[in-house]
């Protein structure tokens, strides 16, 4: 486990052509690390996430991805993902599509080192297009559908805290995070803060992943903005709502990336560019 800046971590661990999983379901989405991947202009990535969310909007617009592996390409509570939608409708990006259950089952197989994961659901048009084999149970007459493992080259994750050893801790919504970090060949993390273990044990934070499975940790306050860190800051719903319009306009997306990603050296600069009072309001909304 190394303590690295986000720039160093991406430079060291994220390579062109890799399969990445940027974890987090609505909660704890690793925007700081994702933006760093855009800034360092990685190319030909396969980006996996149950919910591509605005992070993959940014990354698709930043042209880092050849393919998106996903299960729900919506803007949560708002509508669709305009950049993703445009790329798919124009055929400029490849997709591989699953249901949520299939996605997390694929991660679970990856996490456990198993060649498949069984599940008991119905076939549908997705499983007709992308056949989902069935396996015969040796114990009964049952046949069960199976999905292949998903083993990301790197899983990137943002969590509440790391202790001095680099153990990662979270609270609140787990979504797909646990399976995603367990499945990754390497885990690159950013955290809100670094805290002594004794201090962490006095809170409700629970272990996500032990340090021996973590490649690097970067301390990145607000590293999940505009998504949220439960108990630290709330979701920036205005940003998500605004994206519905901004994302439809290619040049607006470009200038947003220029202003908030390419034109900045680091996350600290990103935070300075936020509208006055916005971040403090999100802290207050989280009860801080």
């Amino acid at each position, binding site marked *: 486990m190394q303590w690295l800046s986000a720039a160093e971590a991406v430079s060291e661990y994220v390579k062109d052509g890799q399969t990445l999983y940027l974890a987090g379901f*609505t909660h704890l989405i690793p925007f700081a690390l994702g933006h760093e991947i855009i800034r360092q202009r990685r190319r030909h990535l396969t980006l996996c996430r149950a919910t591509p969310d605005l992070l993959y909007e940014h990354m698709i617009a930043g042209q880092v991805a050849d393919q998106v592996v996903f299960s*729900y390409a919506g803007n949560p509570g*708002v509508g669709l993902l305009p950049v993703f939608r445009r790329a798919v409708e124009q055929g400029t990006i490849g997709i591989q599509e699953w249901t*949520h259950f299939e996605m997390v089952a694929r991660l679970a197989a990856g996490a456990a080192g198993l060649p498949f994961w069984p599940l008991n659901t119905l076939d549908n048009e*997705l499983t007709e297009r992308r056949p989902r084999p069935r396996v015969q149970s040796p114990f009964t007459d049952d046949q069960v559908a199976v999905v292949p493992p998903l083993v990301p080259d790197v899983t990137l994750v943002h969590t509440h805290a790391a202790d001095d050893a680099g153990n990662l801790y979270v609270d609140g919504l787990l979504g797909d995070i646990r399976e995603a970090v367990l499945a990754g060949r390497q885990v690159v993390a950013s955290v809100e803060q670094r805290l002594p273990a004794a201090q962490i044990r006095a809170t409700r934070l629970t272990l996500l992943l032990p340090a021996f499975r973590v490649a690097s940790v970067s301390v990145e306050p607000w590293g999940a903005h505009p998504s949220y860190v439960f108990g630290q800051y709330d979701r920036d719903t205005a940003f998500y709502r605004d994206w519905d319009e901004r994302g439809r306009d290619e040049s607006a997306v470009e200038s947003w990336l220029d202003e908030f990603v390419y034109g900045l050296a680091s996350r600290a600069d990103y935070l300075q560019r936020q509208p006055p009072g916005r971040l403090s309001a999100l802290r207050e909304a989280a009860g801080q």
Partner: protein
Amino acid sequence: MTTPPLTRREEMAVVAARLLRPKERVLVGVGMPNLAANLAKRLHAPDLVLIYESGILDANPETLPLSIGDPVLVRDALATISMLDLFSNYLQTGWVDVGFLGGAQVDRRGNLNSTVIGPYDHPAVRLAGSGGAADIAACAQRLILMLPQDRRHFPARVDFVTSPGHPATGRRPDGRGPAWVVTDMGLYDFDSTGEMRLRALYRDETVEAVQAATGWPLAIHPHPTRVPPVTPEEYRALRALQQARGGPRR
């Protein structure tokens, strides 16, 4: 203080809320189902167990959440569990009584499309996709669907079967599948052959109008009724829910 009448969309939420029974475990989808389920919990079903596919068990949101992963859903929830745990050990094993879904298209068998308008490989509109919808449709004990009704949303054939309904051969043999469809024109159930059937109309709708908004010859219950009007209590609960929406946290 003015008391504007409910929009038809709001009335849909009231009608759908009435379909939920006390203590049921409801897997709540994005959008209108979210409004309806939270409304039922504030009316006749305070013990309703709200489950969200993000891994939230027994949510008790103070205000209406914008998305299914919002912090307001987590704050007073019984627990957050991994999606794997939720889908494997709760949904897959039949512990979810009601799957509550929206979508872009539904057909006469209750097949639901939330994936694409037009051909999958050359989409006219690329929608969000399944999320958990296909899994919920497969495993929940019964499904309630909510869609606005017109020929775009009610085509003869959905462009893509994201969440399968009743097979062409009859109702699902395991007793599961679509049970109700709530639209802005009426309420539908499914007959013994698994065919969607008009059950009740809103006060100012006609069978003719409903048929005109439907892309196939609609089956009609022998004795279709009128949807009972929104009660003052329902009205107040809905307004209170919406006013709290997006407001500051107390």
